[in-house]
């Protein structure tokens, strides 16, 4: 379904926002061998019975699409990690929030490309609602942190094309610095 690992990240973070989270913490930890994504939110969370159901591709809470018979985000992610002997974990507590973690071995022949991290972070920041996102991105021993409220204070307007262009450049420069020696 999704072409790159970043697409899975976009998908999962959307779940957090749809669950009413006001704070989403994203960690992207990359080494030479693997890359791990962790999405932790303070949304409405899930009870034990629901946790078991969400991994079923034929389960949908029918909130988004009333007649829908499939809910594919999490099942597809699980399948993708299984294909490459990666890791997946899902923890949730009703009323408190949910944490999804997934790890992919980069050297596995079937591992999807990582994708465009800068663009993905940008997309994560620009929903037109009140919410906070903290992204901690590391590659080996280097890294950077992106906090939505900080960028909002600097840019003021996340819908202005000029600001979006600048934001993209800002994020690209953070990513590029990870490759510098």
């Amino acid at each position, binding site marked *: 379904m999704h072409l790159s690992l970043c697409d899975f990240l976009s998908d999962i973070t959307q779940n957090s926002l749809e669950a009413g989270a006001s704070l989403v913490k994203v960690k992207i930890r990359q080494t030479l061998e693997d890359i791990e994504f962790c999405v932790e939110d303070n949304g409405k969370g899930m009870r034990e019975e629901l946790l078991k159901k969400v991994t079923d591709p034929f389960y949908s809470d029918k909130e988004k699409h009333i007649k829908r018979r499939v809910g594919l985000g999490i099942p597809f992610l699980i399948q993708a990690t299984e294909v490459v002997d990666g890791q997946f974990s899902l923890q949730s507590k009703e009323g408190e929030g949910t944490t999804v973690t997934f790890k992919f071995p980069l050297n596995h022949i079937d591992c999807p490309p990582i994708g465009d991290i800068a663009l993905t972070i940008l997309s994560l920041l620009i929903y*037109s609602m009140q919410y906070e996102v903290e992204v901690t991105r590391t590659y080996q021993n280097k890294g950077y942190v992106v906090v939505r409220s900080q960028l909002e204070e*600097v840019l003021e307007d996340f819908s202005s*094309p000029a600001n979006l262009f600048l934001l993209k450049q800002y994020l690209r420069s953070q990513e590029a610095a990870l490759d510098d020696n």
Partner: protein
Amino acid sequence: MAKMTLQELRKLRDSKKSELDRRDIGSKDSQIIVGMGTCGIAAGAKTVLDAFIEELNARQISNVAVTQSGCMGLCYVEPTVEVISPGMPPVIYGKVDTEVAKRIIRDHILEKKMVSEHVFDRPSVDIIKDGGK
């Protein structure tokens, strides 16, 4: 590319802002909403978002708001983009790619002409806007 600091970003942003103020452009007239639901992501909506950012910047257009929504319910023709522009009816475009994005800006936004082959209807409500109920 040297790593940009927040101060540098702020300076760039302020200089752009005063530049635009001098051109006397008022508040936003048009709105472009890129559908970024699961279906949209899988179909490449992020590339479409990027295309709008690049093209609007290349054309130095600033009175267009670019935002995202969740799934608009037209999963079979993703990527979808809703365009609300004065003088035009609100439209949802489907099967949008980089080229169609450029046409939307050139034809729909600038010349007030619909990109007819890509027009679709909207059956669903976006639940991301309400932060999930």
